[in-house]
């Protein structure tokens, strides 16, 4: 059982990544965190290759294998975002999410056997969900910034708007990427890239609301009014997100495929 060895690889990777996050916070130098993140990724990939060779096929079939890729991709995307934008918390967040997936794989091994239904067995599944998770985190941060701004308690109001603008644009990049990959996947699975099912409708409303924010910011309109759009869009994001697992119609749609 290759999976029995997973804990060693996972602990080493996590050790590197957590030290990397610590190094980001403790020192201004970037060399050490860079080494730490890449070392962790290399160790993690080594396990995936081992599993791949042992399986004889890419490890993309079981839930456990799927979580393996999440754990990896979320750290890599968080790392790239940190390289570009220096958001320390985002690196910490993606390491945390990765750790949760790793822990599930270690503590609940029986879930390894739970399989994916046919429609989810697609190479688009993992990137599609991973970028959505990242977008969710970034939009969450933008929402916090907007709420501090709206409460009027922020010390530097102008800086807050700048942060919100930046986060919404980065988050929208991920959000659109998730939607577009979902569209390509849907075309492959069902023959249509867009069908206006409830999940798609709410994802569209969410993206449109962020678009309204981005475009309104270029007009001279009461800043407070515009800033309200961020929490409203986030509410739509939550409806899309929760709707995916809790709407009665979504339960049905899982069983029809």
């Amino acid at each position, binding site marked *: 059982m290759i999976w029995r060895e997973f804990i060693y690889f996972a602990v080493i990777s996590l050790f590197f990544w957590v030290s990397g996050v610590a190094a980001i916070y403790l020192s201004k130098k970037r060399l050490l965190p860079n080494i730490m993140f890449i070392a962790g990724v290399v160790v993690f990939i080594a396990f995936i290759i081992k599993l791949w060779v042992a399986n004889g096929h890419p490890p993309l079939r079981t839930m456990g294998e799927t979580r393996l890729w999440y754990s990896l991709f979320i750290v890599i995307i968080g790392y790239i975002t940190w390289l570009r934008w220096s958001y320390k918390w985002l690196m910490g967040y993606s390491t945390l999410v990765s750790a949760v997936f790793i822990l599930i794989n270690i503590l609940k091994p029986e879930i390894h056997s739970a399989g994916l*239904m046919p429609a989810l*067995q697609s190479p688009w599944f993992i990137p599609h969900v991973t970028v959505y998770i990242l977008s969710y985190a970034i939009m969450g941060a933008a929402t916090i910034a907007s709420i501090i701004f709206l409460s009027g308690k922020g010390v530097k109001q102008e800086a807050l708007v700048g942060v919100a603008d930046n986060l919404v644009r980065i988050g929208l990049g991920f959000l659109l990427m998730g939607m577009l990959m979902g569209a390509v996947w849907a075309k492959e699975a069902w*023959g249509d890239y867009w069908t206006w099912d409830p999940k798609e409708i709410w994802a569209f409303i969410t993206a*449109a*609301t962020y678009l309204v924010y981005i*475009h309104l910011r270029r007009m001279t309109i009461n800043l407070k009014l515009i800033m309200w759009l961020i929490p409203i869009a986030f509410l739509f994001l939550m409806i899309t997100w929760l709707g995916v697992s809790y709407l009665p119609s979504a339960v049905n749609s899982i069983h029809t495929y």
Partner: protein
Amino acid sequence: MEREGDSKQKAAPVKYTIILAVITAGVLLQITTGQFPYELIRFPVNLIIIMVLITLAALKQGKILAIAGSLPVSVFLIALIAIQSIVMGLMTDNSLKGSWPFAMTYFMLLINLALTVGRRARSFRLQDTGFILNHAGLFILLIASGLGAADSRHLFMNINEGESLDYAEDYETGDALVLPFNITLEDFSMEYYPPKFFLIDAKRGIMEQLSEESSQGYKVATDSLSDKAGFAPEALISVKGPGVDTTGWVSSGSYTQPRKLMQIDQFRYISMGDPETKSYCSRVVLSRDNESGRREEIRVNHPVKSGSWCIYQFSYDRQMGNHSKYSILELVRDPWIIPAYIGLLMLMAGAVSLFWKGGKL
């Protein structure tokens, strides 16, 4: 001076009033004529509309076009589309997508987007690349998925094992359409994941999934599985654990038979979970006049192409599952798929540029 200020203040709401008037006209048309007549914009009408839009984009923008393509109009239209989508999201069906007001908003959005792209393209500088990728990409995708979708066909073929068919049905109109090829279904088959077992403790009112090592120390091993046509799946299992060492049959039940539990002591039972589908697939032979039959496997996520048609595994006899005697295939022809993918790719590149540029304009 005062006058000019006045006219500016009045001019501002005029454009919104016009947009709302167009949408109101859409509402009236909806009430009097029903849904938007989608078949009216089939080729070549959609192509003519695209030509008009491209001409609009290329025109030098006077006062009216400049307003029609302005940012406030964009924002208003995107917001209107979002509001209509919220209404659609709260309804139980998505029929609003084919309504007159939605179509009207869509057309106005296309005009605004065409003018926006045209204006920026004429004064193009390198730093506008992200802007053009996003807006032209969205423009192309909106055209392909809206105007272009009028030319797409979705047909369904309900085919029995051993049967050969060369036609498929349009579920919306009820027409049957003859295809340029012939499909023979050799076999429909399904694969299931290994069944799951659950321990039910009636006294404590709990149910937990059993695995090789469950928290209560019970082990379940499947000795044999039975899946006969017309009968519910059954499993012969042996359960070992504190004070228990037995074998017996359990069944997940089906539409004809009740679920069968295995009792292991006074309060505890083992139950078998519903079968979970791993994959299903139609093995077919595709033949065209000029070529000999081509053997293909059609699975979910793995459509097969034949000429301009894509063939998808859609459904099967759900009551019979693995023993289904027929398969339902979906046949899709979308002549605008290439522009759609070009738009999608441009938008993906645009999304990367959004990430990369962030709030730095």
